[in-house]
Each structure stands twice: as C-alpha cells, then as structure tokens.
C-alpha cells in the first residue's frame, strides 16, 4: 500500500504544560469523544478539598532553569577533594554517559515485559556476573540503594536464614555511624540490636572480636578496606569465628578493592555488601549503588531484584527477572524486603565501567589504590610534626594522618586553600587519593605543609 501524504493538521498547541502535546483542537475533540464539557468535569474531587490556591512557583524557560541551576550550584566552592570513607571517585570514561543516556536504557521501566527489555536485562545479568566473579559468591542482586541499606538488608537476611533466634548484629567500630544509623532503623521490625566491637590499630583483632561474639550474634560485619583505609589481615579468622557461632559473616567492600584483595568467598564471607558506584559514577553527593551478593543457599531469601537466564519460545537464550515471589509486589507483607525502585541505571553504568577497564585495567586501577596512598603518606610524613599513616597497616586509597594542630582547624585551613579532607578526631585527618585527584598531589602536600605549621 502506497503511503500518501496524510491528513495534515495545522493547529496551535496548548502550551501551559510544555511536555504535553495537545493542541487546543485535540483537547476539544477528546472531550467530545469522552462526552465531557470540560477537563475540570473529569475530576471527581469534592469541592471542600479542591485546591484553589497557588504554589507560588513561577514557570521558567529551559534556558532560565539551566542558568538558575548552574548559578545556584556555582555557590559550591571549587575544592579538590581528598575525601573517601566509603564514597570514592575514579575517572569515569565518557563512553559511560554516552551509552547509559541512550533513552532506551534511561527511560525504560523495570523489566516486567522481558520480551522488549532484553537489553537492560542482559546488562543487569552481566552486572550480576561481574559481582559473582569479584566476590566469589554465587548470587548477586541487581542493586540496593546504597552501602548502608545493603548492610541493613544483609542483617535482615541473616536473621531470616539463621536456624536459631538471635538478637545481636556485631559491627566493627570503624564502620561509619551513618551506616549504623540506617542499620538500626532497618532492625526496628526485628528483635535485633547493633553492637560494636573494638578494633586494634585500625583493624579487627581476632581476640577482641571473639570476646564479643556470643550465640546471640546473628551477623558479624567487617569492612575491607575499612572506613579509615586500612586493609584487614585476619578475615579468615573472622569467618571461622562467625561459623562457630552460626552467625553470618558480612563483608563490606567495593568492586575496585575486590579486584585485588582477598576474595570474600575464600575467607568465609556469607554476604558481601558495599557501594559499587565507585565505578561508573561521580561521588554525586552520595547517590550510591548498593552492592549485594551472597551464598547460593540464601537465594530464596535475597532482597531485591534478580535477573536469570532462561529460554524463549524459540529456545533462544533470554533473560528475565526471576524469583519474584520474594518481592513485595507479590508477597506483600511476607516479602524479603520492601525494595521496589532500586539503582538499576547506576548498575548499568558500573557494568559498562568494568567492561571498559577490562580485567587488566581493573586490577591495575586497584593496585594504584595501594600505591598512591603509600606515596602520599610518605610525603606527608616528611612534614614536620605530621605522622602518616597513623596505622601501621597496608592501605587502600586512604589513610589517617596525625597533625600537631587541631584537626578541625587543619581541615578548615585546607578548605581555604582549595582542598577538602576529613577531620577524624582532635589530631587526625583522613586523606584519600585516587586517579581522580592524583594530579593535585604536590599542591596538596604543599598546602598541608603550610597549614600544619
């Protein structure tokens, strides 16, 4: 059938909502088809609750909004950040924006119709596969919100899978308080509470840990690297202690560290959590990607979404969300979690980043995370009065440095010099270095030299 020039409209658009396409004639025709007099008539809202005020928000052109937001955000100071503590910056290659912003990915929904969502499903399947490889565990989900909520979900999982009841989640005292706060909130519906165990010189001491574990311990949580950048040295012992007490061993980490450090499955980890967006995304004020992986025998208790391989009616390989009966939209109050919307698009970005780096690139990036802080600590240690690193450990990306002056003042003075560091306590600052800020290293060392004097 030859396609002729179709009915040509010539109509003016109704312009109040810039993203609704209706012409005035459309609106009238649609109302006629409905049999309504006006759009207002379609609303079945009692007049007593109708809103007849105004929000007092003026509409602006795209140009104006772009300018307003640019100008507003320009109130952020231009600082070179030497910040870490769980949220890391690595160079994000251009290809990640280019591919992940393709509207077929960015504007799609959760893959409830897998036949037209094979692309995203495969990308998530590949993301899961990368985490399986990196953790050595058999199962990884499509994402939690961030490291803190992943940790919290791990505790709830540990409680569900444990044969006997228990009441404690035991956590290294190096873990950030923000994570503990989230964990505590998630435990409200359970019988569990959080306890911390003391670390020694920036790492878990098996004896101190063993002293704190009881049969009430549902889960032991350790991070590697820790929030102060040290590399844990006794994880296998932690795994043994956990096993002895029928507690789950949950390890917190990230995908760059995983490429280099001891494989979680080799030290007896049952669950691995963390922030996977160290690859794929800028620090983004903490917008994260909750990494969640666990042993296969926990599979039916996993929170969040899982993509599985299957076949279609033509016996071709195909992917689909699977084991959905764990989820809230089916199991409701008996679901493994309430999570629904997650961080899928960030997972896509992380997967692209891992693919872009490749095995070699990822390992080399991780090794850089060992060497850069070693070198920077040595430079800082050369400054009169500064001791770095504070802990006699191997470090990953970051370390503590002891300063003669008050750490808060040092941090504030560094900020005036254009550098952001974290003040840990009275005389300690924490410093994080990666490929993202390494080019400013010499200027940073110079600034520290100035401000500690």
């Amino acid at each position, binding site marked *: 059938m030859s396609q002729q020039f179709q009915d040509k409209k010539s109509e003016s658009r109704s312009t109040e*909502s810039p993203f609704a*396409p209706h012409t005035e004639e459309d609106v009238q025709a*649609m109302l006629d088809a409905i049999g309504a007099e006006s759009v207002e008539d379609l*609303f*079945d809202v009692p007049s007593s609750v109708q*809103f007849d005020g105004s929000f007092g928000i*003026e*509409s602006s052109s*795209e140009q104006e*909004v772009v300018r*307003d*937001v640019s100008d507003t*955000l320009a*109130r*952020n100071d231009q600082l070179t*950040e030497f910040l870490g503590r769980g949220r890391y910056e690595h160079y994000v290659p251009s*290809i990640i924006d280019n*591919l992940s912003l393709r*509207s077929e*990915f*960015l*504007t799609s*929904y*959760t893959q*409830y*119709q897998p*036949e*037209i969502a094979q*692309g995203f499903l*495969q990308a998530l399947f*590949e993301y899961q596969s990368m985490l399986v490889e990196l953790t050595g565990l058999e199962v*990884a989900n*499509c994402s939690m919100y961030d*490291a*803190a*909520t992943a940790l919290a979900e791990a505790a709830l999982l540990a409680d569900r899978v444990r044969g006997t009841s228990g009441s404690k989640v035991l956590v290294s005292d190096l873990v*950030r308080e*923000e994570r503990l*706060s989230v964990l505590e909130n998630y435990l409200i*519906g359970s019988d569990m509470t959080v306890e911390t165990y003391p670390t020694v010189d920036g790492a878990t001491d098996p004896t101190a840990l063993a002293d704190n574990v009881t049969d009430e311990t549902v889960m032991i949580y350790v991070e590697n690297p820790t929030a102060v950048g040290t*590399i844990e040295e006794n994880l296998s012992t932690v795994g043994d202690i956990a096993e002895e007490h029928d507690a789950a061993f949950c390890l917190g980490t990230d995908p760059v560290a995983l490429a280099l*450090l001891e494989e979680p499955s080799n030290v007896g980890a049952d669950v691995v959590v963390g922030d996977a967006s160290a690859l794929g995304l*800028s620090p*983004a*004020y903490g*917008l994260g990607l909750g990494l969640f992986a666990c042993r296969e025998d926990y599979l039916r208790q996993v929170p969040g979404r899982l993509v*599985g*391989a*299957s076949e279609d*009616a*033509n016996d071709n390989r195909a992917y689909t969300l699977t084991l959905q009966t764990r989820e*809230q939209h089916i199991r409701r109050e008996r679901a493994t979690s*309430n*999570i629904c*919307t997650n*961080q*899928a698009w960030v997972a896509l970005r992380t997967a692209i980043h891992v693919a872009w780096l490749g*095995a070699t690139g990822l390992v080399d990036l*991780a090794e850089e995370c*060992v060497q850069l802080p070693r070198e920077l600590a040595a430079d800082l240690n050369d400054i009169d009065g500064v001791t770095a690193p504070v802990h006699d450990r191997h470090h990953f990306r970051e370390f503590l440095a002891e300063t003669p002056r008050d750490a808060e003042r040092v941090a504030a003075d560094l900020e005036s010099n254009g550098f952001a560091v974290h003040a840990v306590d009275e005389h300690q600052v924490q410093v994080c270095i990666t490929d993202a800020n390494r080019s400013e290293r010499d200027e940073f060392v110079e600034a520290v030299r100035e401000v500690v004097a």
Partner: protein
Amino acid sequence: QAVWSETDDSRYETLLAEKNEQTVDVEERTTLPDELTRESVTLPELSEPEIARHYTRLSQMNYGVESGPFPLGSCTMKYNPKFTEEVAALADAAVHPDRSAESTQGTLAVYARLQDYLGRIGGMDAVTLQPPAGASGEFTGILVARAYHEHNDEGNRSKVIVPASAHGTNFASAVMAGYEVVELPPSDDGRVDIDALEAAVGDDTAALMLTNPNTLGLFERDIEEIAEIVHDAGGLLYYDGANLNALLGQARPGDMGFDIMHFNLHKTFATPHGGGGPGAGPIGVTADLAEFLPSPHVRADGESYELYEPERSIGKVHGAMGNWLVLLKAYAYIERLGDEGLTDTSAKAVLNANYLGSQIDLDIPFGPFHHEFVASAGDRDAADFAKRMLDYGVHPPTTKWPEIVSEALMTEPTEMESQDTLDQLADAFNAVAGENEESLSTAPSSTAARRIDQTSAARNPRLSWHALE
C-alpha cells in the same frame, strides 16, 4: 510504532564474557603481600569499540518512553526532559557527600528549595529528601509515625491499616517498620469501605496508608470522613504519592487531612526510571511530625543553608542524603513547569486516561477515574493480553492487579501522549480484544525475544554467566 527486531539467532547479543575475557594473575601485578590478595580475577577484556557496539545493541533491544506509548498503570511513565540530564551533569553537582556545609551552599540551596516546593505542592509543613525511593519513603514515613506515637507514650499502637488494593510496598514497608498489617477490603464502588474502616480502627491503630486516587484511578470522595475516623482513633493518615500525577494543583494531600506523604519524584516529577531506578521518595509531614524527620535536614539560616539534626530525629534511612541527582532533576522540572505547568500536567493526564478509556472495547468496571483506569480483559488472561499487545508495537498496561478487577489491565497513559498515540494504543487494545485465545497465548510473535519461560528461570536459577558454562 516501535520496531521490533526480526527473530533469528543473530538477534541475540553474546555476553561480554563470551566475546573475550581474561584471567589476570593478581599477585604478579601488586605490591601487596600475597596473603592479603586474591590469586586471580577473570573478567571481560574488550576494546572500546566492541563495548560501544555491545551496549548500543543492548539498547536497541530495550523499550523506553521515547520508543512509543508506555501506559504502565501506577508507574507514570512520562517524558523525562533532556535538559534535566544536562543540569545533573554539571561539574558542580558532583561534590562528595562529606564536604562541609559551608563549601556546598549550592547543593544545600537546591535541597532547601526543593523541600519548600514539595511542601507547597503537597500541602505539607516539612519535607525530607533523604528516602531514595518510594518504598523507602513509605518506610521512613511509618518510622516517623512510630517515633511520634512513642514520643506520645502510645508505643503500644501496633497496627497499620492498608486497603487490599494498595501497592505491595505499603504492606512490606509497614512490616519492616515493626507493624502488623490490617488489610481493609474494598467497598463495592472500589473505594474505602467506611464501615470496614470503622471496624478496623482502634487504639492499636498507628496509621492508615492510602493512595488517592487509588489504584483504580478513583478519588476517595469520603477522604475527609476517613481522616476524621483515623484521627479520632489517634491514628495518622499516610498518603502514598504514587498517583499524585492525577492531582497536581487540583487537590493537596495536606488539605485532605493526610499527616504524612511520600512523593515519587521519578513518577510525578519526571525523573527517568532508569530501568528500575534510581528514584527518589521524599516525604512530607505536618508540623507536629517535623521534629522526627531523618537526619540531617537542611534549613535556611539567613542567606546561607545549614545541616542540622531534627530534635527527635529517627536517624538515617540512607547512608548520605538520598539520591541527589534525582532530586536535582526534579527540582529543575518543577522550576520549568511552575504552577501553571504543573496544574496543566494533571489536567492532561486525566484527559488522556479518560479519552483512552472511552476508545477501547473493554469493560472498565470502576469510575469516574482520573489519570488511570483498570479495564478487564474479561475471559482472557490479562498477561496473555498484554503479551499480544507487544505485537502491535506498544508497551502494554500493568496486568492482573489490582485484583478487585478480574484480569485487570491497569492503564496510565500520562500527559505525554497525543491523541494520535492514544488512538494507536486504543487500536492495539481493540485488535487484541478481537483475537482468539491461541493468538494471545502464543504471543508475542514479532519481538526479538519470544515468550520467555518464567518457570524454568525460577526452577533452575542461572544468575550469572558462570552458571551458563
């Protein structure tokens, strides 16, 4: 209409690991002692052009709102304006969450203004932006309700009432917050059954969670009476914001008597769904509840902005300050539309749903509906019905839910569709309605992947490429 690819083996994209992977000897490449490191890692090893083609191909096997109509009920798949991605990509937006408040006044200004905007839009006194998704907002809201009751020495309130037609997250969130869920059966007209509600409330009621318009698209006309019943019993009223796209500028939850609400920025405020997230689920509360909001909260202090811990804060529900980039995009969207644009958005969303409803040959048992409607596939299986719609080049509606409508087809076209695309959708509905059962049960036939075997996926889980070897 969408282009589905043809069906032959070449339509499938091999996995990254199948293209090339490499095992790297880790100990050889590190200066760390062996006992701290793994031995090796095996991952894909490809050139950038190969990666570009891989993901380009995958994107072609995916359907988004720019591919065609996407009337997924309750999901509000509306257009995501491009410029919001541009502002989210500004270098100044990428600061570290541990930066000092003094050095992040720009970011905090956006937080403060968005809190303010959402408060005005919802009719709420205080807003937190910390929950990273709608379900997290629900959980946070119920935690706030719990803290409120405990503060008032009413910690014994142990139940949250949820209508049967509510989103599954309501049930799960209430349980996670430590409550028992009381399910409320619907009345014959699809709305809250006032008698059942009165029977359900009591001095053990912590809250009623309500979606309005509800999942059938119906406005709860008796909302004021409902609020009175719950409040009289000492409970709080929680508004599930999933359907707010129906009401912008038309009615405000705060004005209806709701004490707590969440906003789905990725639905109502046009941030992209990203194949499942990230979203953002800010919650708004009345003045009485403001002191319980998560920490930190942002407030203006003269010309500048500061972070503080609300007096009786529940603490944190996210490791940082929520999904910042999503918040930023929603802020830009709200500034773009303003009062008139927001109000018109809901007007057009409701117009579109009603027009589409008027054009399809299926029963829509409940009305008058607003931004969405639930049609019945009748004696057809709704899931099959949806699969067959794929063959007409459109995304189908949400199926088999809410259960109050048998073989439900829950349909929400949003304001972004034109009369032409609505007609295209109606044609797809009507064509499928006229087909025989076999055609439905074997559908889809024109998509890249044909009907996928869910049972075998669940029975024999293969969750990584390792499991395919």
